[in-house]
């Protein structure tokens, strides 16, 4: 039985940050996830923004953890060689009656000590966003925020954690947790048993089930679902800031540029999902977010939508007003709950720091790892590499000159590199390389990626999956092949 000091359950953005932070220290760390790729559940299916803390009431834990998030992310972007896009926020008042709300929001910004947070009038709005509705009576303009692509970050964090000695166990669902003695647990998975002293419950939508496995019956989650649509890059000029109309715990109306330069529209009123995997998009929700989007930008072209998806967010029963709950379990000593919700992505780096402090308080001795490598091995990206670097890369390896995804200009070399570094599904390749994210949504590159995966993983094409488990991309071979 493998013995760990800390096991992190769940490789979403929070679990990935925690694993990477823990890898700064000497110790045996394991990161477990039932999926085959980090950051592919709740982490992926959100608005993917590093927000200001304005949506969080002052005095809340989540508000506190969001402060300075862009600074933390930018520093990490350099260490891990991951991308981000700077996007400023505009909270719009769509009627004069809403101006008072903006003033309240501005005061909140002051309380949070936001450096740049100002009220602007219709003329300035028009300068900043010429396509925004004429109804906009005023806006709160907040600068210095970011858009990121979360699965890429989760992958980078996990990869860096791995380089620094963390053991990654993907495709490994935790089925049971038993106690061994006073202060140790045995984690049962379909791939064997693992022993640990401390456990981090970062299991997202499944945090309640993981808590119960460890004997903690107190955790309950309330789930809601938001719907998003991605628009083609040909209309990216329409919106340059994150535009918020109205928002509350019950709904949200926004249009934002994404890290990859598309536009995203969301999220509508939040219904309750049927079950934890219910990330289906429904026709009426789609119409609703388009309608809400057009209220902000009337010329929003719905026929340029290239992709739609839904994501589930959770709130816990342990704290009021949808706040986070990051605490030691009361009935399972050694387990730390990370029950987050929106804006979890923004808060994730600070959550990780807090969890490390809590582990220290609980008696875990953390000695600095001398060999800690804070820099992750860089990743060649054809679409953003400077001319001379491209030239050198193709000369050294001609596969970097063979474009596989035409929409996003992803080369065969990048795809092979992704496979070498652990991406073993079609969606996994998409998350790390962007192949299949463009205008044609994998129409051209889907089949070549399938073939590259089959060849490099050394498995038949009918064993290659779209997103792990039983999501086989194809089911067999035609007669022409068998003959």
């Amino acid at each position, binding site marked *: 039985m493998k013995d760990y000091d800390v096991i992190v359950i769940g490789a979403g953005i929070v679990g990935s940050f925690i694993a990477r932070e823990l890898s700064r220290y000497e110790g045996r760390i394991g990161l477990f996830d039932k999926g085959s790729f980090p950051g592919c559940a709740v982490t992926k299916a959100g608005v993917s923004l590093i927000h200001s803390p304005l949506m969080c009431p002052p005095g809340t834990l989540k508000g506190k953890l969001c402060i300075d998030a862009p600074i933390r992310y930018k520093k990490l972007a350099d260490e891990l060689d991951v991308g981000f896009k700077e996007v400023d926020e505009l909270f719009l008042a769509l009627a004069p009656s809403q101006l008072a709300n903006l003033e309240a929001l501005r005061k909140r910004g002051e309380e949070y000590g936001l450096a740049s947070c100002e009220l602007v009038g219709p003329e300035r709005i028009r300068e900043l966003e010429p396509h925004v509705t004429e109804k906009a009576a005023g806006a709160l303009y907040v600068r210095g925020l970011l858009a990121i692509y979360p699965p890429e970050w989760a992958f980078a964090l996990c990869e860096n954690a791995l380089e620094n000695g963390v053991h990654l166990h993907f495709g490994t669902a935790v089925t049971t947790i038993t106690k061994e003695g006073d202060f140790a647990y045995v984690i049962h998975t379909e791939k064997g048993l693992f022993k640990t002293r401390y456990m981090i419950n970062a299991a997202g939508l499944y945090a309640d089930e993981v808590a119960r496995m460890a004997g903690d019956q107190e955790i309950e989650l309330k789930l809601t679902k938001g719907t998003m649509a991605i628009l083609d*890059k*040909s209309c990216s000029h329409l919106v340059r800031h994150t535009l918020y109309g109205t928002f509350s715990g019950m709904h949200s109306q926004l249009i934002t540029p994404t890290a990859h330069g598309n536009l995203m529209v969301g999220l509508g009123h939040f219904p309750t999902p049927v079950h934890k995997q219910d990330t289906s998009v429904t026709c009426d929700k789609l119409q609703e977010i388009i309608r809400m989007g057009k209220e902000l930008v009337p010329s929003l072209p719905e026929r340029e939508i290239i992709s739609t998806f839904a994501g589930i967010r959770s709130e816990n029963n342990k704290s009021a007003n949808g706040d986070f709950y990051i605490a030691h379990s009361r009935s399972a000593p050694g387990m730390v709950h990370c029950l987050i919700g929106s804006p979890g992505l923004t808060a994730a780096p600070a959550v990780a720091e807090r969890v490390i402090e809590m582990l220290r308080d609980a008696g875990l001795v953390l000695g600095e790892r001398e060999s800690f490598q804070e820099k992750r091995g860089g990743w060649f990206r054809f679409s953003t590499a400077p001319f001379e670097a491209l030239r050198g890369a*193709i000369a050294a390896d001609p596969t970097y000159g063979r474009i596989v995804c035409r929409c996003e200009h992803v080369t065969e070399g990048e795809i092979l590199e992704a496979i070498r570094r652990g991406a073993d599904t079609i969606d996994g390749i998409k998350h790390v390389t962007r192949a299949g994210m463009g205008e044609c949504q994998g*129409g051209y590159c889907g089949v070549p990626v399938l073939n590259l995966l089959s060849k490099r993983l050394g498995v038949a094409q009918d064993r290659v999956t779209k997103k792990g488990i*039983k999501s086989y991309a194809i089911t*067999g071979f*035609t007669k022409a092949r068998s003959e």
Partner: protein
Amino acid sequence: MMEHESIAVDVAVIGGGPAGISACLELSRKSPNLKIALFESEEELGGMPRTCHLFFGMRDLRRIYTGPGYARKLNDLLRKTHVDVYTQTTALDIVPGAKGENHFVRVVSPDGLKTYRSRFLVLATGCCESSLGERLIPSARPAGIFTTWQLQQIVNLHHLKPGNRALVIGSEDAALSTVMTLKRAGISIAGMVEEDKELQTYPLMAQGLSGLYGFPIYRETSVNAISGIDRVEGVELVGQGKGSLFHVTCDTVILSGRFRPISQLIHNTPIARDEATSGPSVDMNLMTSVPNIFAAGNVLRGGDMHDLCALEGKNVAESILARMSSTEDEGDGWISLRAIHPIRYVVPQKISPSRIRRSTFPSLLPGVSIQVAHTLRGAILEAWSGEKKIWEKTYGRVIANHRVPIPVGRFNWDGVDFEKGIELRVNGSHLKALG
């Protein structure tokens, strides 16, 4: 800097499908001394026909080939010319030059990055089918959803079987090709789904295939949701007439048709884009809004027949040769054409009445054509300029996604208001739009 490091050619053609190849063939046939470069992303030339197995070549080569046979034939013809063919070479961006100056194309291949400069440029990048997202079909994005083009690559190029039982969404010509491909691959067909009450292809052919292969055609039916989380498990359909929800079990969904141009290369360039087609907009010579940059084939409109694309490639070649030999600018007297729903688009978007008047056989000019958004029965197509009707014609059936030629030579040109341009309508449709 670009000027020094670039490779000079007379004509650069982007896209090695029927339109691009035909443009090259015609150019080299009529003017053997031209230096022509053709860029194709795939390993082989031929474009979409490479993966289809239906009838090809009727209107351009005047013989019937299979898709791959047709692609091979074009390839063979091209290899006999001195056109420089670069496969596995993707055009990354184009930088149009100032008036009369060279245009630049940056390409990449395993041989490296190169920049070409040429006075003439042809965009023939073709089209792709609408994805799940574009069609706004709800699902949890399971495996087992393919477009027709993906299906045909999988089955015809790689001999793989995408699933065991497939539902075909759409009833355009591509849907007929889809059911034949499915049959060849030994995949059972769960049905064909069409939102409209009319089929968007030849109805007798669709019904014939439905009888022959034993699958139902669901008309006036839309997709409510695709079920399944890992792999497709079925599709929930809603009959509009009855409003009833029903479930079809299948492990594969094929999205067929709804083609759109691949026009990424014109983003962030001064080349004007037609919102209706999302491809470049062109004049009667198939020239874009930037002088000496031309476009041909499906980049102009999406899923048209390959042989019509090939003929359009030839037309582009003729336009280029004409411009080479004459400095006369035809820029004066252009009049714009606009399509009103249910006409989806009109190509070209600009015509020159003086040229139509000058021509002895106006019907031989590169044609103006339209496509309608959905199949119409007993429709009257009309052309209007301002308040004046300048042409009309009654059609028994106008099939969606089939090109309908518009005889602009027959328009009453005396009634045309140049400022207002010409609108193409289906009788009554403008009233509906107003109401």
